[in-house]
């Protein structure tokens, strides 16, 4: 007997939504096996990794805090991914957004202007867009592959952050630590819920989900982008501009990543350091795929991804495992999702092996 995949006449709607659930189930299962291999009790490991982070209301608030940048980046990326525009440099766009907004905070230090904070957010979005515009321009003008160029710019952005915090922007009273001055209270995002670290960036993220939904489902431009992604030639025949898809897809991703970046430095971090993001820009790609590129899906998958980050911290503290275990889980999740997706277009059948 031999397992064979038979094409379905129509893609299965049910499997489109069941596949992420199957993938999460498989990730849990391999998590248990992983803990077993590492010589830890699987039950204990599961408890520490997936349940401990949420055992009190502070933990739940932290979950939303960590999900915020993921939500922002993922909703921006999903616009491009729908049109097959592969912006994989959100991490770099996030960093440049943090630098652009952070520059305002440092330059207008002590200012009490009510425009400072909104200005920082706008600058963050523009910074991210600028960084995303480079691969968009190189793609539309010179046909250069946006996957490779956007990724290369992540390294350039990381080095730029490193240079600024070691050099021109270093806090002179900071005991030579590679970090800027702390942002003033006027340049810090207001806390939403007293006693937690959740700030108004969560509102931006939820707003971005709504705007993303309206754009993709209720606007002509969103429709054009979906067509361009699903049937490139149909889109071209209908006269939809492929270049515009690239620009919109890239800039949407860049803007949202930039807002995520400034929200981190003007939020929980409070200054610019070398460790602005633990790979949110990359994890957001997984969030977008697991969330089926839909805002509602992204909401839930960003919470799951945030849980994986927190689980890694717990595992480091209580199981003596490196916190990078969360990245192992993230990678496994994406693999399982891609694998499970086979059931959307194919159905498995046992057939007798041909001689």
């Amino acid at each position, binding site marked *: 007997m031999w397992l064979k995949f038979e094409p379905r006449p129509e893609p299965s709607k049910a499997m489109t939504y069941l596949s992420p659930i199957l993938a999460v189930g498989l990730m849990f299962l391999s998590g248990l096996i992983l803990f077993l291999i590492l010589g830890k009790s699987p039950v204990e490991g599961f408890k520490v990794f997936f349940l401990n982070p949420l055992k009190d209301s502070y933990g739940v608030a932290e979950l939303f805090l960590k999900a915020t940048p993921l939500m922002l980046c993922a909703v921006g990326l999903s616009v491009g991914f729908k049109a097959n525009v592969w912006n994989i440099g959100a991490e770099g766009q996030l960093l440049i957004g943090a630098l652009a907004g952070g520059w305002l905070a440092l330059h207008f230090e002590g200012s009490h202007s009510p425009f400072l904070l909104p200005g920082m957010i706008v600058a963050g979005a523009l910074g991210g867009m600028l960084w995303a515009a480079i691969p968009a321009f190189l793609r539309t003008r010179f046909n250069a*592959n946006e996957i490779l160029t956007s990724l*290369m710019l992540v390294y350039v952005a990381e*080095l730029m952050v490193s240079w600024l915090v070691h050099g021109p922007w270093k806090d002179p009273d900071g005991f030579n630590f590679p970090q800027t001055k702390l942002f003033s209270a006027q340049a810090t995002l207001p806390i939403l819920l007293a006693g937690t670290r959740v700030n108004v960036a969560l509102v931006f993220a939820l707003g971005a989900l709504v705007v993303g939904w309206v754009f993709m489902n209720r606007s002509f431009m969103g429709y054009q982008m979906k067509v361009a992604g699903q049937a490139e030639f149909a889109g071209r025949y209908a006269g939809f501009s492929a270049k515009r898809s690239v620009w919109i897809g890239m800039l949407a991703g860049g803007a949202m990543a930039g807002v995520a970046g400034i929200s981190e430095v003007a939020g929980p971090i409070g200054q610019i350091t070398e460790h602005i993001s633990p790979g949110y820009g990359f994890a957001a*790609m997984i969030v977008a795929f697991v969330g089926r590129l839909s805002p509602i899906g992204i909401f839930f998958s960003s919470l799951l991804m945030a849980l994986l980050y927190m689980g890694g911290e717990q595992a480091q503290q209580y199981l003596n*495992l490196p916190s*990078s275990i969360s990245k192992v889980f993230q990678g496994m999740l994406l693999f399982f999702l*891609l694998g499970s997706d086979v059931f959307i277009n194919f159905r498995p059948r046992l057939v007798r092996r041909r001689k």
Partner: protein
Amino acid sequence: MGLSFISSILFATVVAGTPLIIVALGELVTEKSGVLNLGAEGIMSVGAVAAFATAHHTGSPTLGILAGMGAGMLMSLLFGISALTLMANQVASGLALSIFGVGLSAFIGKPYESIALASVDPIRIPLLHKIPVLGPAFFEQQGLVYFSWLLIAAVAWFLYRSRAGLVLRAVGESPVAAHSIGYGVVRIRYQAVLFGGAMAGIGGAFLSVFYTPMWVEGMVAGRGWIALSLVVFATWRPTRVMIGAYLFGGCMITQMFVQGSGARINIPAQFLSALPYVATILVLVLISRNRSTIRINSPASLGQPFLPDA
């Protein structure tokens, strides 16, 4: 600038370019079969940590390389299952492999941080290593450097002079035609993917066992992605990979160049470190600018899934 300085610059360029040659040639063969594997960065990372751990525990760099190669093949097998058997999107599968591999290597490698391996003595090629300037740069190198040169010849011969290479290219140009005359498209693509994985694993092993020689999280530092760009730069031709690899290798050692030349210019280290990434972007732009060059040279079915019996 003294002659010995020029010699050491050449030496360092060759060393920096070697892993790029090996990884890019592996990816080139994979892409020639019509499969785009963006996972090189992840494979290199896991290959590097597997090789380091093995070399550290056994004391044998050779076993380290073999471990890196094996780990690379296992990683590329994951990609194969996803992209070839389960017919998932190749771009997404490759990204998944990169994210997973970078994370996994950080996880496995944690206990090995801050250990250094003994440096391995180079292999001197008799007579040739005595040539002034060029001898020490090219003929007093690690075994894998010579391996990378042999690999260029071997891959060029395989693709353009052997029957199996012809079949592989046919699979990459038109999988449907190759399938209809009886070639196992998926099987051949698996072999190409595994070869690519083995080479990326060896490339990673070179970094951790010979180049640094130690393990640091994130030490691959985008070399997997640069190797992918190199395949485009070389317009899918093995001999051109070497030129590109040494060009990028040269970019990677500018720091040493600037310090050694005694020039009194004060450039922040980060600017020099950014050079290979900026150079990669520039090179991609220069090559891709001419759409027909890309269209003629890239395998026609690159990145598209193949469905048997369709």
